[in-house]
Protein backbone atom coordinates (compact mmCIF):
# COMPACT_ATOMS: atom_id res chain seq x y z
CA UNK A 1 0.00 0.00 0.00
CA UNK A 2 1.25 3.50 -0.79
CA UNK A 3 2.69 5.34 2.25
CA UNK A 4 0.26 8.25 1.84
CA UNK A 5 -2.71 5.86 1.95
CA UNK A 6 -1.39 4.24 5.11
CA UNK A 7 -0.86 7.68 6.61
CA UNK A 8 -4.45 8.70 5.84
CA UNK A 9 -5.77 5.52 7.42
CA UNK A 10 -3.62 6.01 10.51
CA UNK A 11 -4.76 9.62 10.86
CA UNK A 12 -8.42 8.57 10.74
CA UNK A 13 -7.85 5.81 13.29
CA UNK A 14 -5.78 7.95 15.66
CA UNK A 15 -7.98 11.05 15.52
CA UNK A 16 -11.19 9.23 16.46
CA UNK A 17 -11.81 7.03 19.48
CA UNK A 18 -14.33 4.99 17.52
CA UNK A 19 -13.71 4.93 13.77
CA UNK A 20 -15.86 2.90 11.38
CA UNK A 21 -14.79 2.15 7.81
CA UNK A 22 -18.03 1.29 6.04
CA UNK A 23 -20.04 1.41 2.84
CA UNK A 24 -22.08 4.60 2.91
CA UNK A 25 -22.19 6.79 6.00
CA UNK A 26 -23.88 6.66 9.38
CA UNK A 27 -27.03 8.34 8.04
CA UNK A 28 -27.26 6.21 4.89
CA UNK A 29 -25.45 2.88 5.14
CA UNK A 30 -25.14 1.24 1.72
CA UNK A 31 -24.77 -2.35 2.89
CA UNK A 32 -26.57 -4.48 5.47
CA UNK A 33 -23.38 -5.36 7.31
CA UNK A 34 -22.35 -1.71 7.60
CA UNK A 35 -25.86 -0.89 8.77
CA UNK A 36 -25.60 -3.51 11.55
CA UNK A 37 -22.53 -1.80 12.96
CA UNK A 38 -24.10 1.67 12.81
CA UNK A 39 -27.28 0.44 14.53
CA UNK A 40 -25.30 -1.20 17.34
CA UNK A 41 -23.22 1.93 17.98
CA UNK A 42 -26.38 4.06 17.87
CA UNK A 43 -28.01 1.84 20.49
CA UNK A 44 -24.95 2.20 22.71
CA UNK A 45 -25.30 5.98 22.31
CA UNK A 46 -21.58 6.56 21.86
CA UNK A 47 -19.91 9.09 19.55
CA UNK A 48 -18.30 7.60 16.46
CA UNK A 49 -16.97 8.69 13.10
CA UNK A 50 -17.51 6.92 9.80
CA UNK A 51 -15.54 6.85 6.57
CA UNK A 52 -17.30 5.86 3.32
CA UNK A 53 -14.96 3.45 1.51
CA UNK A 54 -17.13 3.68 -1.61
CA UNK A 55 -15.89 7.25 -1.98
CA UNK A 56 -12.23 6.25 -2.02
CA UNK A 57 -10.85 3.17 -3.75
CA UNK A 58 -7.37 3.49 -2.19
CA UNK A 59 -8.71 3.45 1.35
CA UNK A 60 -11.20 0.71 0.47
CA UNK A 61 -8.38 -1.65 -0.55
CA UNK A 62 -5.79 -0.23 1.85
CA UNK A 63 -7.83 -0.81 5.00
CA UNK A 64 -8.19 -4.51 4.15
CA UNK A 65 -4.42 -4.82 3.98
CA UNK A 66 -3.85 -2.57 7.01
CA UNK A 67 -6.13 -4.66 9.25
CA UNK A 68 -5.35 -8.01 7.63
CA UNK A 69 -9.13 -8.30 7.28
CA UNK A 70 -10.86 -8.89 3.93
CA UNK A 71 -14.26 -7.30 4.45
CA UNK A 72 -15.94 -3.97 5.16
CA UNK A 73 -17.16 -2.70 7.67
CA UNK A 74 -14.25 -2.46 10.06
CA UNK A 75 -14.36 -0.87 13.50
CA UNK A 76 -11.39 0.67 15.29
CA UNK A 77 -11.48 1.52 18.97
CA UNK A 78 -8.66 3.63 20.45
CA UNK A 79 -6.49 2.81 17.44
CA UNK A 80 -7.01 -0.95 17.70
CA UNK A 81 -8.92 -3.13 15.30
CA UNK A 82 -12.00 -4.42 17.10
CA UNK A 83 -13.62 -6.43 14.31
CA UNK A 84 -16.25 -6.44 11.61
CA UNK A 85 -20.01 -6.87 11.67
CA UNK A 86 -20.13 -10.45 13.05
CA UNK A 87 -17.76 -9.68 15.89
CA UNK A 88 -19.57 -6.46 16.83
CA UNK A 89 -22.87 -8.35 16.96
CA UNK A 90 -21.39 -11.12 19.07
CA UNK A 91 -19.66 -8.73 21.49
CA UNK A 92 -22.87 -6.69 21.76
CA UNK A 93 -25.03 -9.74 22.45
CA UNK A 94 -22.75 -11.07 25.18
CA UNK A 95 -22.40 -7.63 26.82
CA UNK A 96 -18.66 -7.24 26.23
CA UNK A 97 -19.02 -4.41 23.73
CA UNK A 98 -20.68 -2.01 26.18
CA UNK A 99 -17.92 -2.65 28.69
CA UNK A 100 -15.06 -2.42 26.17
CA UNK A 101 -16.38 0.83 24.71
CA UNK A 102 -17.01 2.43 28.11
CA UNK A 103 -13.47 1.64 29.23
CA UNK A 104 -12.01 2.96 25.97
CA UNK A 105 -14.01 6.20 26.04
CA UNK A 106 -13.04 6.83 29.66
CA UNK A 107 -9.32 6.39 28.97
Amino acid at each position, binding site marked *: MAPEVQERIETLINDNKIMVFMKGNKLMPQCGFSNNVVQILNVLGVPFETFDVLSDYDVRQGIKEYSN*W*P*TIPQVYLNGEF*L*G*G*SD*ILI*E*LYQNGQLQETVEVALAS
Partner: protein
Amino acid sequence: MVTADQVISMIQTDMPDAEVQVNDLTGGGDHLEVTVVSEAFAGRSLVQQHQLVYKAVQSAMSSEAIHALALKTYTPETWSKVSQSA
Protein backbone atom coordinates in the same frame (compact mmCIF):
# COMPACT_ATOMS: atom_id res chain seq x y z
CA MET B 1 -19.63 -18.12 -6.80
CA VAL B 2 -18.42 -21.17 -4.92
CA THR B 3 -20.20 -24.25 -3.67
CA ALA B 4 -20.55 -25.09 0.00
CA ASP B 5 -18.33 -28.13 -0.54
CA GLN B 6 -15.56 -25.96 -2.00
CA VAL B 7 -15.69 -23.64 1.01
CA ILE B 8 -15.54 -26.59 3.39
CA SER B 9 -12.55 -28.09 1.61
CA MET B 10 -10.71 -24.72 1.50
CA ILE B 11 -11.12 -24.36 5.26
CA GLN B 12 -10.21 -27.95 6.02
CA THR B 13 -7.06 -27.73 3.90
CA ASP B 14 -5.77 -25.06 6.30
CA MET B 15 -7.44 -26.42 9.41
CA PRO B 16 -7.62 -30.21 9.15
CA ASP B 17 -9.50 -30.73 12.42
CA ALA B 18 -12.20 -28.16 11.61
CA GLU B 19 -15.87 -29.06 11.51
CA VAL B 20 -17.53 -26.72 9.04
CA GLN B 21 -21.17 -25.93 8.32
CA VAL B 22 -22.13 -23.69 5.41
CA ASN B 23 -25.49 -21.98 4.91
CA ASP B 24 -26.19 -20.24 1.63
CA LEU B 25 -28.17 -17.21 2.81
CA THR B 26 -29.48 -16.01 -0.55
CA GLY B 27 -29.22 -19.15 -2.68
CA GLY B 28 -26.81 -17.31 -4.97
CA GLY B 29 -23.66 -18.79 -3.48
CA ASP B 30 -22.03 -15.45 -2.68
CA HIS B 31 -23.56 -14.63 0.71
CA LEU B 32 -22.56 -17.46 2.99
CA GLU B 33 -22.95 -18.15 6.66
CA VAL B 34 -20.16 -20.37 7.89
CA THR B 35 -19.77 -22.00 11.29
CA VAL B 36 -16.36 -23.42 12.12
CA VAL B 37 -15.45 -25.51 15.16
CA SER B 38 -11.74 -26.13 15.68
CA GLU B 39 -9.21 -26.70 18.43
CA ALA B 40 -6.99 -24.15 16.63
CA PHE B 41 -9.20 -21.33 18.01
CA ALA B 42 -8.29 -22.08 21.62
CA GLY B 43 -6.60 -19.12 23.29
CA ARG B 44 -7.17 -16.78 20.36
CA SER B 45 -9.31 -13.63 20.25
CA LEU B 46 -12.38 -13.48 18.00
CA VAL B 47 -10.47 -11.32 15.53
CA GLN B 48 -7.64 -13.85 15.40
CA GLN B 49 -10.10 -16.74 15.03
CA HIS B 50 -11.83 -15.07 12.09
CA GLN B 51 -8.47 -14.20 10.52
CA LEU B 52 -7.56 -17.90 10.51
CA VAL B 53 -10.70 -18.72 8.55
CA TYR B 54 -10.35 -15.72 6.23
CA LYS B 55 -6.81 -16.83 5.42
CA ALA B 56 -8.12 -20.23 4.32
CA VAL B 57 -10.69 -18.71 1.94
CA GLN B 58 -8.57 -15.71 0.91
CA SER B 59 -8.50 -16.51 -2.81
CA ALA B 60 -12.28 -16.78 -3.03
CA MET B 61 -12.75 -13.53 -1.10
CA SER B 62 -10.25 -11.51 -3.10
CA SER B 63 -11.76 -12.66 -6.39
CA GLU B 64 -15.19 -11.67 -4.97
CA ALA B 65 -16.42 -15.24 -5.57
CA ILE B 66 -17.57 -14.81 -2.00
CA HIS B 67 -18.96 -11.32 -1.38
CA ALA B 68 -19.99 -11.80 2.19
CA LEU B 69 -19.13 -14.36 4.79
CA ALA B 70 -20.98 -14.35 8.07
CA LEU B 71 -18.63 -16.19 10.38
CA LYS B 72 -19.15 -17.97 13.65
CA THR B 73 -16.15 -19.60 15.25
CA TYR B 74 -16.04 -21.92 18.24
CA THR B 75 -13.59 -24.16 20.02
CA PRO B 76 -14.94 -27.68 20.68
CA GLU B 77 -15.52 -26.60 24.32
CA THR B 78 -17.48 -23.43 23.55
CA TRP B 79 -19.38 -25.25 20.80
CA SER B 80 -20.60 -27.93 23.19
CA LYS B 81 -22.00 -25.17 25.45
CA VAL B 82 -23.69 -23.36 22.55
CA SER B 83 -25.18 -26.47 21.00
CA GLN B 84 -26.53 -27.61 24.36
CA SER B 85 -28.26 -24.32 25.07
CA ALA B 86 -29.71 -24.00 21.56
